[in-house]
């Protein structure tokens, strides 16, 4: 952007309402032309039909829309798609590797950590980023890491247990996490 050489009209002229974006979602590259007011949540669910990412408030108060951006959890409802340019997004659909479920997915299923299942995608992704960073977290660490995702069904107990179980399995020497 050429700054104040031509003054006001210049910046105003450069302000955009639509922009091209390249992003990598679950390993798949996309090139899109999106309105700047479109959030990543809307792009994922409505443009890319990746409906595994949920929503419960759209204003940062529930955590349902959590996805990983370059491996870190963010709220897709408060992320502009244009700002994801060149970055890597992981959604729940991207947790499987080569047809094999992620150990967290197996643990959630086996331990009963999913009831209505609506918070499960966000819980899984948040837990994944925790385990990537800290392979054998304490219960307090798990509680802290998952504290941005509400769940109305489980009382969180089986979710914590599932994360602990996945951590154990991923830490086991014979595992191929």
């Amino acid at each position, binding site marked *: 952007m050429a*700054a104040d050489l031509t003054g006001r009209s210049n910046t*105003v002229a*450069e302000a955009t309402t639509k922009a091209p974006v390249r992003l990598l979602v679950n390993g798949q590259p996309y090139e899109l032309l999106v309105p700047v*007011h479109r*959030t990543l949540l809307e792009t994922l669910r409505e443009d890319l039909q990746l409906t595994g990412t949920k929503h419960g408030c759209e*204003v*940062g108060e529930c955590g349902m829309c959590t996805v990983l951006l370059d491996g870190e959890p963010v709220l897709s409802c*408060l992320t*502009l798609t*244009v700002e994801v340019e060149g970055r890597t997004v992981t959604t729940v659909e991207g947790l499987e590797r080569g047809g094999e479920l992620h150990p967290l997915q197996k643990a959630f299923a086996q331990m009963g950590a999913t009831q209505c299942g609506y918070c499960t995608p966000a819980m899984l992704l948040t837990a994944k980023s925790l385990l990537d960073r800290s392979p054998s977290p304490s219960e307090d660490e798990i509680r802290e890491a998952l504290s941005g995702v509400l769940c109305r069904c489980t009382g969180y107990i089986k979710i914590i247990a599932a994360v602990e179980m996945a951590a154990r399995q991923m830490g086991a020497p014979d595992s191929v996490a």
Partner: protein
Amino acid sequence: MLRLPRFQYVRPSSLREAVSALADCGPQAMPVAGGTDVYPKMKRRQFLPRYLVSLQGVPELKGIRGDERAGLVIGAGCTLTEVASHPVVRRFYPGLAKAIESISTPVLRNMGTIGGNLCLDTRCNYYDQTLPWRAALGWCMKAPDPGGWPMAPEAAPAENQVPCRVAPGSPRCWAVASSDGAPALMALGAQARLVGPRGERVVPVGELYRDDGMFFLEKSQAELVAEVLLPPADGTRSTYWKLRRRGAFDFPVLGVAVALSLDTDGRVAWARLAVTGVASRPLLMDEAARLLVGQKPSPELVEAVAQAVYLPVRPLDNTDFAHYYRKRMAGVYVRRALQELLGPAAAA
């Protein structure tokens, strides 16, 4: 789904460009960093900027430099996670780490920035509501029509027709300062470096604020917070106590930050105490802090300081928890914060 209103997007790639973009676009422009305050408010139509100037591509706002001896320089664009997990912050400025870690949730802290936190809008439960809700209320002074913010002081209608809903006769808005970072930084004696169209200036963090729920920042619309400067830590003890309903998500409805250091003979050498959540700006409690200086910790001293904070604060009934409860807790939290920093000698 709540969706964003339309706007025009500007993405400058340097601080200078960002400032001139803001100046160019005029009062209809708003900077956005992490967007964790801006986007929810836009979705609720509390903010309706015509232009959004994104700070995400501004390299000068990134990074944390320095150490505990020289002091730390924190780029305003650092995420809250970056700040709270920085080893020097954790070890030497624990009050700041504690305050930042108490902000909402880990996932939100991955997005929100320290600069955005300092400029966080004031809050009120007649105002932080959706468009239909506020329409049903009949609006309020701070957002007097569906057109929403931002409104520069000069753009505000001289005769404001819509009353404040908390204090209907009041000529001003009483929305509440709600940043956790601000009081922690104030207690630590931090300064902010501001960069604007007319150059830059460095001011103590506390001087960023005005006691007005609508126009709560002492800075021009095109001025940006570029950096936060923390003084050398030497021997500083600091902490932060936050009142909220739940252990995550919730804003402070009372926040008490204390920083102090002790002489070799165990007397308080200096102390600063800042309180948020009880007025439209975070308050530096100078008088209360003065009581500490030169004194040895004792339960009586702590009680006197707690009283000196408790008595003057006047929260209103526009946040979670009853206002009288928040006032009462101000005393309790000050006492507990001091007891934490001063150890057994201060405990009753």
